[in-house]
């Protein structure tokens, strides 16, 4: 990005361990790392992050401020843009330079079209970046960024964080779960095995989903369907068992980072896009996997 604009890349972080963090960031081409004192705010919430970033931005005058399009990044980014009253483009998937101006492309109408937008306001331009569109590149330059301790004084926050907790991963909706086990057509003929498979999925900390034929057969409720007409996955790992990989199914899982496919048919189309292809019977494999994680845990 910086090369595109002919500028120098810098980053902002909060925390006392600036130096060790800077060492980790070595090779990613950052020039400066602004480290803020974690004691500047009583709590680090989107509100206080936004205040801190705003005050650094006012002082350092960046051309472009990027946030990750995560819940925290989107929240803080919008607040900073509102505070600075400057152009804001969310969930960008691509950037381009036209003359002096920067353009960003993003999905609109739920991904049915892409829109290219251009910043007209004076910098800083603010954007949140879709993390799926990025790949960390380690450059040849192995220098650690220069660490700059920056002081910020913040206003008293008006929202208070009272509780932070984690939902049991097995209780999550399919779209949010990071590990999902999907079971396909073979289960219909052996419905009595369903509870065993559920137990196995639970013991590896996964949410169990099924393909469309299974919900159509009435074995599982519609909420556990994975597919274009059901749940779209976006987690880290998906284990597809006895699922051949129809286009509708594959469309709904394209955001998953790692795909493991288990099938007895060694020519199942899903093997083409799987990272780990396993020719095995799911009714033997899943319980074995469950046992294995019980013994290791």
């Amino acid at each position, binding site marked *: 990005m910086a090369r595109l604009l002919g500028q120098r890349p810098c980053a902002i972080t909060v925390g006392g361990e600036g130096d060790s963090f800077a060492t980790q960031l070595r090779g990613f081409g950052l020039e400066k790392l602004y480290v803020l004192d974690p004691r500047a705010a009583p709590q680090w919430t989107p509100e206080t992050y936004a205040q801190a970033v705003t005050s650094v931005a006012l002082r350092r005058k960046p051309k472009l401020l990027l946030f990750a399009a995560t819940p925290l990044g989107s929240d803080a980014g919008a607040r900073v843009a509102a505070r600075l009253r400057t152009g804001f483009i969310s969930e960008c998937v691509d950037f381009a330079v036209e003359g002096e101006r920067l353009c960003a492309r993003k999905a609109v109408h*739920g991904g049915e*079209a892409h829109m290219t937008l251009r910043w007209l306001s004076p910098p800083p331009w603010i954007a949140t970046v879709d993390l799926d569109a990025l790949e960390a590149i380690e450059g040849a330059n192995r220098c650690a960024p220069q660490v700059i301790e920056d002081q910020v004084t913040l206003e008293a926050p008006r929202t208070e964080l*009272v*509780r*932070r907790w984690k939902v049991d991963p097995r209780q999550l909706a399919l779209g949010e779960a990071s590990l999902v086990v999907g079971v396909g057509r073979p289960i219909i003929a052996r419905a009595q095995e369903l509870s065993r498979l559920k137990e196995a999925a639970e013991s590896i900390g996964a949410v169990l989903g099924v393909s469309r034929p299974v919900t159509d057969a009435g074995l599982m409720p519609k909420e556990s369907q994975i597919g274009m007409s059901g749940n779209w996955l976006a987690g880290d790992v998906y284990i597809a068992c006895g699922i051949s990989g129809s286009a509708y199914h594959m469309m709904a899982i394209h955001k998953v980072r790692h795909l*493991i496919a288990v099938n007895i048919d060694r020519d199942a189309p899903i093997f083409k896009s799987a990272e780990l292809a*396993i020719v095995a019977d799911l009714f033997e494999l899943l319980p074995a*996997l469950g046992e294995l994680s019980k013994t290791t845990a």
Partner: protein
Amino acid sequence: MKIAVCLKHIIGPPSSGLAGTGAPLRHSPNPLDLSAIEEALRLRAGSGGSEVVVVTAGPPQAELTLNRAIAMGADKAIRVWDEAMCGADSFFTAEVLCATLRATGFDLILCGSRSADTGSGIVGALLAEELELPLIAGALGLKYDERTNRISADKKLERGVRETYTTCLPAMVTIEHGPNEPRWYGAGWVHRLLKQKIERRDLRWLGVSFPAQSRRVEIVAVTPPRPRTKLGVNVASLSREEKLRMMFGQTRTSAGQVRASDRPEDAARKIKEHLDKWLG
């Protein structure tokens, strides 16, 4: 308590596959804004003497959305529109909404966390900034404590992490899709639709003029979606297979396929190894 809900009416392209065929455009309320109305109605039911006012800045078609809100149970509906607002950006929309909200009064302002069309998700932050209100963004459900006059909201983060925030009223809260499904129609909706009139306002009535610096971002082009490509990847260095994979939107880099057709225990161990690596 007076709860104001800001709505967006979305005019979208025809359903996929029909684009360019002259099929009619799709009209719909922004789904997250319906969730915001639902939360407002639940709060009203929980505390006596509350009122729910819905506000939209949009052309006459936007009354479809207001009618839905009335049918759901909103007490009052206001539509602001002026020809000058064609192509207005989030900043101007927020300014118009602010002026309207100041005129109607409020204790709590709700809206969806982003719209389903362009979805920049900044209007909530702008309203909070302009009206100097505390902001909770992306709330899943709301609770109001009458004794302390505080509102508390759960917020969804990644990987099943949740946070609860509280703040004092008056406040601004943007709503994310949570456990409360928006109701389709509320009781007595026919009567309400017949009886309730939508108030129509223009910019002169509000005392807002079109700003000199009109837009901060402009639309350059709208194109069919291109497959996802990763930024910063040197395409020339990829093999043909990898290029094809990228063209078809597959960003998973194959870690080399492992075919294990041995005993299920061995296969399970293999999966477990990868799970441990990938899930950290």
